């Protein structure tokens, strides 16, 4: 669509005036919006979990980084993947602790929450991010082992993370904002719609979506 000559000249004049009077203001990045908060991030070594852990740390959060392996997956896109997430946070002046944990094991999930509380006093933010994907296949070709693995990490892992985080959050005093804690579950569009050739993945993420709704309503 082509504006009329009149509109074009008005816009050019307006742009000139705007540039003349615009006062450039310092564009400071957001910092310390979550100062003194303590978070647990599962699956924190690579990808989304790593970005979340780094993002939280940049806002002032002390982060318990939990993953099966401390190092980032080599297939990832991070330019700094030679550094582990917790190292990177400390290098940038933040506070972080790495704990080895398997999200489908109750004892491991209980341990990371308890360590957050014992080392740093409380747990304000639980990010249930750890997830797996075993590749594209129809339900005919998908194996029972693939189903169990996917459901174990993606669904049971989130359930365990919520269970132990909520137990801790109910025990601790609320922050001055009144918040006792916040839980963020990483689901997927696979939890909202049916994706082709990902049967157990979609089932596992659908479980995360509705567990999230249930917990939001009732402890």
């Amino acid at each position, binding site marked *: 669509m082509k504006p009329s000559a009149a509109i074009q000249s008005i816009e050019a004049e*307006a*742009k000139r005036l*705007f*540039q003349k009077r615009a006062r450039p*203001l310092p564009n400071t990045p*957001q910092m310390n919006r979550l100062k003194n908060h303590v978070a647990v991030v599962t699956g924190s070594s690579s990808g989304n979990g790593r970005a979340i852990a780094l993002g939280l740390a940049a806002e002032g959060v002390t982060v318990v980084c939990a993953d099966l392996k401390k190092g980032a997956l080599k297939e990832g896109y991070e330019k700094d993947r030679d550094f582990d997430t917790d190292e990177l946070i400390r290098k940038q002046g933040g506070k972080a602790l790495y704990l080895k944990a398997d999200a489908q094991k109750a004892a491991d999930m209980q341990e990371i929450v308890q360590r957050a509380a014992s080392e740093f006093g409380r747990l304000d933010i639980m990010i249930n991010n750890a997830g797996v994907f075993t590749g594209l296949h129809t339900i005919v070709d998908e194996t029972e082992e693939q189903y169990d693995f996917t459901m174990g990490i993606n669904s049971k892992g989130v359930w365990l993370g919520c269970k132990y985080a909520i137990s801790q959050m109910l025990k601790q005093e609320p922050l001055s904002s009144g918040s006792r804690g916040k839980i963020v579950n990483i689901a997927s569009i696979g939890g909202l719609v049916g994706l082709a050739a990902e049967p157990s993945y979609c089932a596992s993420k659908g479980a995360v979506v509705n567990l999230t709704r249930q917990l*939001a*309503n*009732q402890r």
Partner: protein
Amino acid sequence: MRLNGKVAIVTGASSGFGRAVSIAFAREGASVAVSDIRESPLPGGFEDDSDRTTVQVIRKQGGSASFIQCDVTRKSEVENLVQETVMEFGRLDIMFNNAGIYRAGKLTHEFSEEDLDACFAVNVKGTFFGSQEAVKQFLRQKNGGNIINLVSTAGLQGHPKQSVYNTSKGAQANLTRCLAIEYGRDKIRVNGICPTYAKTALTRAFYDDKDFDTMFVRSIPLKRWGERQDVADLAVFLASDESSYIHGVLVPLDGGETLCRYSVD
């Protein structure tokens, strides 16, 4: 400052959500075209500075704002609103379609045609015109844009005795999705905010009704009314680059109202 150098239009900006959003946008560095049919806030609202206009509040805080009168039910006035904004501030980056009215208290067969028309004129046509004119300006600028529609949980589900309102909000919700599909390629992001009852002049009668207040708060998992600041905070996020991959969603801002049939105390 998350909206530094941006130019925003907010309709229905003299009171309630629109006022809170305008003030928040300005605080984050945006120049705001404050638009409404009246310049002073509606009586019965919850603002503690209701003796001042939105523009006065923003300017006192050192922000940049101008009042541009506009009845969003008239296409020519919405065209004029966008043109005047561009004249004043040089461009348009954010269109916040907030102006809305509420009709309630009757069953569907009891509502008049006027009730239906009024809801559609402001809530649907107003948002439609606002989106049309903003999109035209965004396309001329060739640099993307951002549209935020103030919908309601009434656009996501049914409620008793306000069918004309819910019908209009449902239309707004689906307009939001259509716009997102059509203009994503032009880097124009479009999203909707869906508050439940919040403390504004529009809901004053409900807030003052103790029986309603008790029933309502019990039904909300977070156990409180919505606040104007809740809407302002979400609006800033959706208007900023922090939400740059969020597109075509209708965000419930409802303390959990829409996720359950009942809440447990």
